[in-house]
């Protein structure tokens, strides 16, 4: 999901260096100036006491959280919103989870077996788990959930695609469920660990599925008490909760009495209301505020990469000029990723030069250093490719036609700062990058019609199968909508990606994924730019905030507020 957010100091090169001053074109100037004043004015934050870490958890209290957007529907099966990663963890449990090392671990399933052919999954479910409406968790409910995800009436934009290979299920006994897949699909368990695939009450699914958006019923540590769309969500703890995954290192009900989540759309306001103490935690702290919050001893700042596809400007290989490998290589060599990333993220973004997040399983570090900034090589490649002419504006031409790249993006008050930067970089070697601003609905249509030269975006998921989703030829939008917006159609890559998703986790998958990552460097389906960051911050009075490895978002099950 695309979003302007941040990035992590975890990786090698991303330490926080100089935060550049605001670069605010046109209409953004006013906001920028005000924001700057706000930052200055906000330096006098509260001087509350800092609770020492490691003390005994305190029970009670409501945690006030600000979020940057609100999905409009709280049923994970029916939405694809980024915020669901965080919101889903409050009310839902999943069949399995990823532990601290990113390995599949028990959750609502105690154990599972995968058949030799990889097509049958037998889950042994945890007993004694109940939904907040009192109904039980069992094999029948697991089946109902899978059906609910793919029921067209759910209008699922994401969950249904994740379980696409699911054919049907058998209820072996009350707590044993057998899922039958059409073909071996190792990402199945990973998908089941994602927030969008949390388990809903079977009673609610069968009796009142239309109410799940506004009143979702899960087995999680909190329940939705009051949902005011576009404004806030009030959660209350479930007193009888007792089935948290082992990696959370806790047991029983949540420490907090509740969580109050409020939509605060403006980044400046999110920052200011955090430092003023109005909120304890913000789910999204804009990069321009990172330095101020980091410098403040009263706050914890987290900057973690989301696994999956990093931020990439993806080329459209199905049409000129990017149907020519040399032009793609030239564009990639023309962009000074380091400089672009540095200024865009105020030093908080981590540049990347491969097509898979470094935090993803099976990331192969040997891809690094291949796609590098080399403007001379870019010029040479374009000369060789025949783009030797220059028009009056200094852009390259071939047979009288200008070397033009059209990049549609969502209309907003300010043109995408990233695209403006790329425009400048590309111009140096003679590309005319045109930013086409259109409304969201039209962008969706352009995308599915393949009417663009390049698109910028990220795609977060907890499985390395993201490479299949993004670059396998079967994911090119045709009769079916897919996410291979680069129209990569490469038999060698297809074979590697198919092998990888069908292999069990292990050396075979690792080898196939490594080869696929290298193959992508040869195809150059885009310019990798920076890791897709999850940037959040919270007051030091909040303790016990855990971070999920499926999605690097705060998990509040055993968080507590120091007095």
């Amino acid at each position, binding site marked *: 999901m695309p979003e302007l957010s941040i990035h992590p100091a975890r990786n090698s090169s991303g330490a926080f260096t100089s935060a550049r001053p605001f670069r605010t074109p046109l209409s953004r100037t006013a906001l920028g100036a005000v924001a700057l004043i*706000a930052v200055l004015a906000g330096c006098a934050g509260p001087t509350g006491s800092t609770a020492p870490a490691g003390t005994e958890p305190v029970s009670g209290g409501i945690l006030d959280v600000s979020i940057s957007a609100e999905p409009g529907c709280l049923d994970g099966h029916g939405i694809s919103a980024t915020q669901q990663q965080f919101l889903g963890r409050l009310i839902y449990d999943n069949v399995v989870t990823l532990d601290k090392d990113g390995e599949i671990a028990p959750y609502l399933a105690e154990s599972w077996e995968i058949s030799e052919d990889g097509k049958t999954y037998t889950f042994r479910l945890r007993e004694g788990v109940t939904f907040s409406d009192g109904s039980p968790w069992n094999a029948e409910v697991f089946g109902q959930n899978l059906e609910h995800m793919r029921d067209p009436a759910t209008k699922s934009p994401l969950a249904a695609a994740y379980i696409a290979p699911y054919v049907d299920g058998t209820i072996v006994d009350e707590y044993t469920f057998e899922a039958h897949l059409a073909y071996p699909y190792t990402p199945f368990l990973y998908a089941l660990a994602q927030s969008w695939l949390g388990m809903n009450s079977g009673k609610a699914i069968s009796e009142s599925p239309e109410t799940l*958006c506004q009143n979702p019923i899960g087995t999680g540590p909190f329940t939705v008490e009051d949902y005011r769309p*576009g404004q806030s969500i009030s959660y209350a703890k479930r007193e009888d909760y007792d089935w948290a995954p082992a990696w959370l290192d806790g047991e029983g009900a949540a420490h907090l009495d509740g969580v109050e989540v409020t939509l605060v759309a403006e980044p400046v306001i999110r920052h200011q209301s955090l430092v003023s103490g109005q909120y304890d935690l913000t789910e999204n702290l804009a990069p321009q505020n990172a330095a101020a919050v980091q410098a403040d001893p009263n706050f914890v700042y987290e900057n973690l990469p989301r696994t999956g596809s990093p931020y990439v400007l993806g080329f459209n290989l199905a049409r000129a000029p990017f149907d020519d490998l040399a032009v793609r290589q030239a564009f990639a060599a023309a962009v000074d990723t380091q400089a672009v990333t540095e200024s865009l993220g105020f030093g908080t973004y981590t540049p990347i030069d491969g097509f898979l997040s470094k935090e993803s399983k099976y990331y192969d570090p040997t891809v690094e250093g291949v796609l590098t900034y080399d403007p001379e090589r870019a010029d040479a490649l374009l000369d060789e490719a025949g783009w030797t002419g220059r028009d009056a504006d200094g852009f390259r031409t071939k047979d009288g036609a200008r070397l033009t790249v059209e990049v549609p993006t969502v209309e907003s008050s300010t043109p995408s700062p990233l695209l403006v930067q790329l425009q400048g970089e590309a111009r140096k070697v003679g590309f005319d990058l045109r930013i086409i601003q259109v409304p969201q609905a039209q962008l969706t249509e352009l995308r599915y019609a393949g009417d663009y030269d390049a698109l910028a975006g990220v795609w977060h998921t907890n499985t390395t199968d993201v490479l299949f989703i993004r670059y396998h030829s079967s994911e090119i939008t045709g009769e079916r909508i897919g996410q291979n917006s680069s129209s990569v159609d490469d038999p060698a890559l297809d074979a590697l990606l198919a092998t990888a998703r069908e292999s069990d986790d292990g050396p075979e998958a690792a080898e196939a994924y490594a080869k696929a990552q290298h193959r992508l460097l040869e195809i150059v389906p885009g310019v990798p730019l920076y890791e897709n960051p999850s940037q959040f911050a919270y007051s030091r009075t909040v303790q016990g905030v855990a971070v999920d490895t499926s999605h690097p978002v705060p998990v509040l099950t055993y968080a507590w507020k120091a007095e």
Partner: protein
Amino acid sequence: MAVLRRVVTRLLIGVGVLWGAASLTFLAIHLVPGDTALLILGGPDARPTDEAIAQVRADYLLDQPFVVQYGSYLGNLLQGDLGQSYRLRIPVSEAIGQQIGATAALSAAAVALALPLTFAVAILSAQRAPWIREIVSGIEVVLAATPTFIIGFALLILFSFTLHWFPIGGNQGPAALVLPALTLALAVFGTLSQVLRNELEDVLEQPFILTARSRGLRDLAVRVRHALRHAVIPVLTMSGFVVAALLGGSVVVETLFSRQGIGSLTLASVYNKDLPVIIGIVLLAAAVYVVVNLVIDLLYTLIDPKVVTA
């Protein structure tokens, strides 16, 4: 009886206005390019299945020609059914109902601040020394010309970020209402006060004012009792502007101050091409206009019995 006939006639015209507003909005959104079904299913980054897309098209008649969609919408509307929100997946009436209280409170608070301020400033500054008028008029022009989000930001920086007198946003408690209401009030005040003072200054030139003064009335009494009644009609006429400023301003103010309300619902619905909600809000706005204008017409007669509008 004449009054009743006027009310009925105006209400009938009002129904026509509502029909026109709904139809124009329907057409306008229909003409905006972009596949609504794909947008409902999450936009460019979603992976909807074919079945889900087909279901959405069938549910919302998106696979039907314009005439069928429009006819179906109008038919439902006549039965009082505004349809279901694409985004929130609840009835439009419920979606608007959830938000209307917050916006009504905000608007009422803004009017409660703006009107006394307008009357006080205009009455006290009309026909005063040039330097007073220039300062007051200058402030009014600045306020009238400044976009609402700048006024809001300035108030936030001063009273919330720096002085910490008021919360930075949200719907919790009366304190959270002060800055958003003041933002809207200031935007309305600038224009209204200019109009009222200009009118007052004209009226204060009239012979009957001289007569009143010659009877020994104090200056303030002359202004309030004699001049104001004459000057207030143009201000009433500006009520349409006030309603527009409050409704339009709520979009900006509610977003800036992270408030619930019709404004933020409007913004989210427009971004998501949530047609049923957009038309619902347009109908609500049109209905408010119709009623406000009707009330104003009646007030004209009350203030000056010579005025009789159709």
